[in-house]
């Protein structure tokens, strides 16, 4: 019994050598990354961008939800109101990518779908301060993942040319100062 088992063991050693030797002729699994570009999923959480609507308006209304939800506090921004069309926008919008953990919570929190994570992960820099992205670095000219979505078409926030209660899915605001129905 012991003899049989030992011979079997020794045979299995030779077999494993043979199996490994056969690997020479099989295809290599490694991707040669910089030469061979990687196609990542559409939902990959890479570099963060700020998107615009189809009309070319900034989506971000500086509501600060992304900065609040951010677990590492890497987002900072300040609200400002555009005098002309009464839209809110971010006076500055800053993401410190050396802190960012690409969790995607900002994207989930954003009511206007402005902040979005893209499959671009090539963010390496030699200096840390180059990783602090300002609004001009983050803002892109296209609408990203949700092209049709415009925040002001779905909510009762009034801007110039659209007042409260004008949307189809919206009822007229109640005037709380009068007693009339």
């Amino acid at each position, binding site marked *: 019994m012991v003899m049989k088992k*030992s011979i079997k063991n020794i045979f299995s*050693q030779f077999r*494993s*050598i043979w*199996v*490994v*030797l056969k*690997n*020479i002729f*099989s*295809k*290599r*699994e*490694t991707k*040669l990354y910089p030469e061979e570009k990687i196609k990542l999923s559409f939902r990959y959480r890479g570099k963060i961008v700020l998107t615009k609507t189809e009309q070319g308006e900034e989506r971000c209304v500086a509501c600060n939800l992304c900065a609040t939800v951010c677990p590492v506090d890497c987002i900072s921004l300040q609200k400002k109101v555009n005098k002309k069309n009464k839209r809110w926008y971010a006076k500055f919008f800053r993401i410190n990518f050396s802190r960012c953990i690409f969790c995607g919570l900002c994207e989930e929190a954003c009511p206007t779908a402005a902040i979005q994570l893209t499959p671009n992960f090539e963010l390496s820099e030699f200096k840390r301060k180059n990783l602090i992205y300002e609004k001009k670095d983050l803002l892109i000219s296209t609408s990203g993942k949700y092209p049709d979505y415009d925040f002001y078409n779905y909510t009762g926030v009034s801007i110039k040319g659209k007042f409260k209660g004008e949307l189809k899915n919206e009822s007229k605001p109640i005037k709380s100062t009068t007693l009339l129905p």
Partner: protein
Amino acid sequence: MNRNFIMLKTIILLLLTISFSASLSVIERRLLGLFQNRYGPNRVGWQGSLQLIADMIKIFFKEDWIPPFSNKIIFVLAPIISFSSLLIIVPIIPITKELLIIDINIGILFFLMMASLSVYSILFAGWSSNNKYALLGALRASAQTLSYEIFLGLSLMGVVLRAGSFNILDILNSQKQVWNIVPQFFGFIAFFISSLGISHRHPFDQPESEQELADGYHLEYSGIKFGLFFIGEYISITTLSGLMTVIFLGGFYGPFFPSVIWFLIKMICLIFLFILIRASLPRPRYDQMISFGWRWCFPVTLLNLLGTSIWLIC
């Protein structure tokens, strides 16, 4: 004139051996990549050809730290022994008829002596580092030595019997008709296994097992001292496969090609086998290894010796 020639030959052979062994570290990584369906180092230079230089620059500029709690003289001595003990047997390996530095009558015995001396490097390194893991590695090395030294000598004795001499050139000349690997097959297998043990290669690398002992006996070594251990391993692979070529595979004898080419082909095949075995076999426990050595290799080599002597008498 003659003395100068020998000097030159020696230096050239020494440099060739060391540089080949050093480049083995890259060749091995490439080959391991091949066995494991990946590319090895292929970034520095064309197909990773300058990787060796990059490694050397890295290892030269690392801090060469001697731990204050170590025994300093022995700590420094250990890598030197490791590097040189098997390098010293290069002169007795005849690469061709002319390319042999010394032709001594006790060639095999000289090799056995150097092989047993190489154990000291590990014992010294493990003991003088004053580190528990290093000492455990050294202990395992001694356990391993117990299991391979015996049949290392015995497996060569069949060859010695056939040639009737300890001289390596005589052994070479005795295999003009048939290589020793055919009549001495079990001797070859046993010698190959024990040479895996001498060079501390997988699967017999218990003294330096990374997973359990965090690199074992050379745990406290850094910089060029570690480099000496590292290159020492490849030097022992090179010299042992050269020796195996000479003793078992007919050395430089072969048709068509010049003798150097034959020697190199055989040697490189053996090195390939070393690396292949590293890529494929798991590491046994040291008690498994001792039992394998004593219950399998020892009787097999004894029977081989017995059979050879009976065949020679008849």
